[in-house]
């Protein structure tokens, strides 16, 4: 019996507004602890929160990009719980009437597209930061409330994803939309993009959902993948042994690479939501939505069309490139310096993506600047290195961040374009292989390929292939 995996995500994105959602404190990351707080975000008695207009506009932008309906009438609620990073003892969120609902995102996959439904998008405030360990001694935790009150949108998907690939591609597509919109810097290390995943298994063909496990503490794309992979296996094993999956919250332990049950005490949710009386309802009329729509920046789908049009590259290339904003930026930066668009896309999709995958890094972590890449492509074009050698040079560039020219000099890899030397090597090989010469004379065109291969082998790929081709044809032609 085969199990089907059912996955839904909850995504928290910290908005890139200048000020917090309900007060004028700065949202800048990395400030001295508790230096960006005021009576409102400290939760002192008698203060009134006032909603930041820019946070609403950002939420509308995301709603439009995710094909959601923007709620004409939405409001805020208090979510009550006690935790030291939440000074008011409630979080202002939108439980009953969120700012947007019912949308979808079409996610490009390796093969085809997957439509992932969006249940709702709501606005809320972030909590502060607790520090355990580090500066905190045993028996104490420290609290920094600079983050308390930073605007968040929470994007809740439908449980539509069925595989790791779909989850991974969804996260990338969503991150790219947020980046393209400029509403979130999506810096996972700083916590501005956070994921929670709900996962359950069911027998293939079954329409009811199995008991779901909610997973927290997923602070990078890789952690989401690893945690889901682990949880798929764990649930599959439990079910195969006839066991029962408990609906619970599990934490991902990055060091041990396992998930474990959160203490039920922490899990016993009873948030006692009620309407936030200090904030007025939010009414969003069509003219406001239209104004936001007109000011929307280029989204991935539009960028893809522009790539096909502007750079005249195949649709497939454009899709691969725009599927990662940073990869697409890298491509455009390179093409600006080296305007052979198709050659650049071949290299990006081939050697670059393969190189990144082998090193298990993404383009932002990569040491290679677009200028170095463009310079290397130029060396190929000018014949300073062969395409074959360029691949080795490129691998070195990825590892060291050095310029191609420097690497070629260090390793003595420059292309052999000296006609006399290549000619001498070609003669030697022709002399050593009389049988292949006869084959060629007998009309076997393939034999030419054999000779070219031999010359390249002897020169360790450094010979200029056009030159080799030309010389061999001349020489073998004369022998006829």
């Amino acid at each position, binding site marked *: 019996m085969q199990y089907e995996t059912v996955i839904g995500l909850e995504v928290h994105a910290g908005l890139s507004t*200048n000020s917090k959602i309900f*007060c*004028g404190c700065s949202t800048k990351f990395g400030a001295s602890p*508790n*230096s960006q707080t005021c009576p409102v975000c400290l939760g002192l008695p008698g203060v009134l929160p006032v909603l930041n207009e820019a946070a609403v506009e950002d939420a509308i932008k995301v709603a439009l990009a995710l094909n959601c309906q923007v709620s004409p009438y939405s409001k805020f609620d208090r979510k009550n719980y006690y935790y030291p990073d939440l000074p008011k003892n409630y979080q202002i969120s939108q439980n009953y009437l969120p700012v947007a609902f019912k949308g979808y995102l079409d996610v490009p996959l390796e093969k085809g597209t997957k439509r992932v439904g969006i249940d709702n998008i709501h606005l809320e405030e972030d909590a502060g930061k607790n520090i*355990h360990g580090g500066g905190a001694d045993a028996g104490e935790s420290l609290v920094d409330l600079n983050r308390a009150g930073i605007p968040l949108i929470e994007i809740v998907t439908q449980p539509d994803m069925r595989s790791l690939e779909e989850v991974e591609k969804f996260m990338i597509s969503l991150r790219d939309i947020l980046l393209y919109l400029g509403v979130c810097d999506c810096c996972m290390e700083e916590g501005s993009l956070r994921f929670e995943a709900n996962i359950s298994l069911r027998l293939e063909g079954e329409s009811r959902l199995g008991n779901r496990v909610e997973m927290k503490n997923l602070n990078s794309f890789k952690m989401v993948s690893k945690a889901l992979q682990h949880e798929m296996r764990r649930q599959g094993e439990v079910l195969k042994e006839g066991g029962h999956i408990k609906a619970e919250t599990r934490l991902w332990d990055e060091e041990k690479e396992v998930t474990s049950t959160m203490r039920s005490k922490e899990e016993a949710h009873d948030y006692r939501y009620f309407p936030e009386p200090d904030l007025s309802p939010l009414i969003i009329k069509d003219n406001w939505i239209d104004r936001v729509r007109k000011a929307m920046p280029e989204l991935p789908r539009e960028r893809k069309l522009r790539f096909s049009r502007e750079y005249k590259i195949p649709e497939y290339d454009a899709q691969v490139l725009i599927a990662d904003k940073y990869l697409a930026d890298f491509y455009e930066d390179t093409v600006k310096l080296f305007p052979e668009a198709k050659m650049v896309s071949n290299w990006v999709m081939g050697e670059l993506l393969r190189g990144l995958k082998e090193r298990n890094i993404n383009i932002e972590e990569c040491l290679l600047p677009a200028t170095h890449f463009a310079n290397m492509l130029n060396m190929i074009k000018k014949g300073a290195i062969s395409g074959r050698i360029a691949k080795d040079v490129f691998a070195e560039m990825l590892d060291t961040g050095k310029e191609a020219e420097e690497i070629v000099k260090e390793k003595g890899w420059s292309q052999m374009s000296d006609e006399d030397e290549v000619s001498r090597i070609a003669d030697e090989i022709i002399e050593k292989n009389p049988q292949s010469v006869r084959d060629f004379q007998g009309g076997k065109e393939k034999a030419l390929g054999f000779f070219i291969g031999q010359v390249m082998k002897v020169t360790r790929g450094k010979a200029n292939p056009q030159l080799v081709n030309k010389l061999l044809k001349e020489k073998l032609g004369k022998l006829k």
Partner: protein
Amino acid sequence: MKISKDDVKQVARLARLRLTEEEKEKFGKQLNQILAYVEKLNELNIENVEPTSHVVPLTNVLRKDEVKPSLSEEEALANAPERKGKYFKVPKIIE
């Protein structure tokens, strides 16, 4: 709706209140009286009435996205029962 002693215990726990047995009895009784009073509303026909979330007729009270000066760190920490450096200090949360 009848509030049981367990309900009182649960609500008290969520509100971080420590109640004596007598208090649980007493507040349970009072809560039941309050609910019984509110239940009178059930006698009304509210078929065409929108749920009220706010009693003040205001909408879209918004502010521009402008940074205003925050409190100084000293002011922010002034009321903290305990502090360490520039942080609030609390009993350890995670075991």
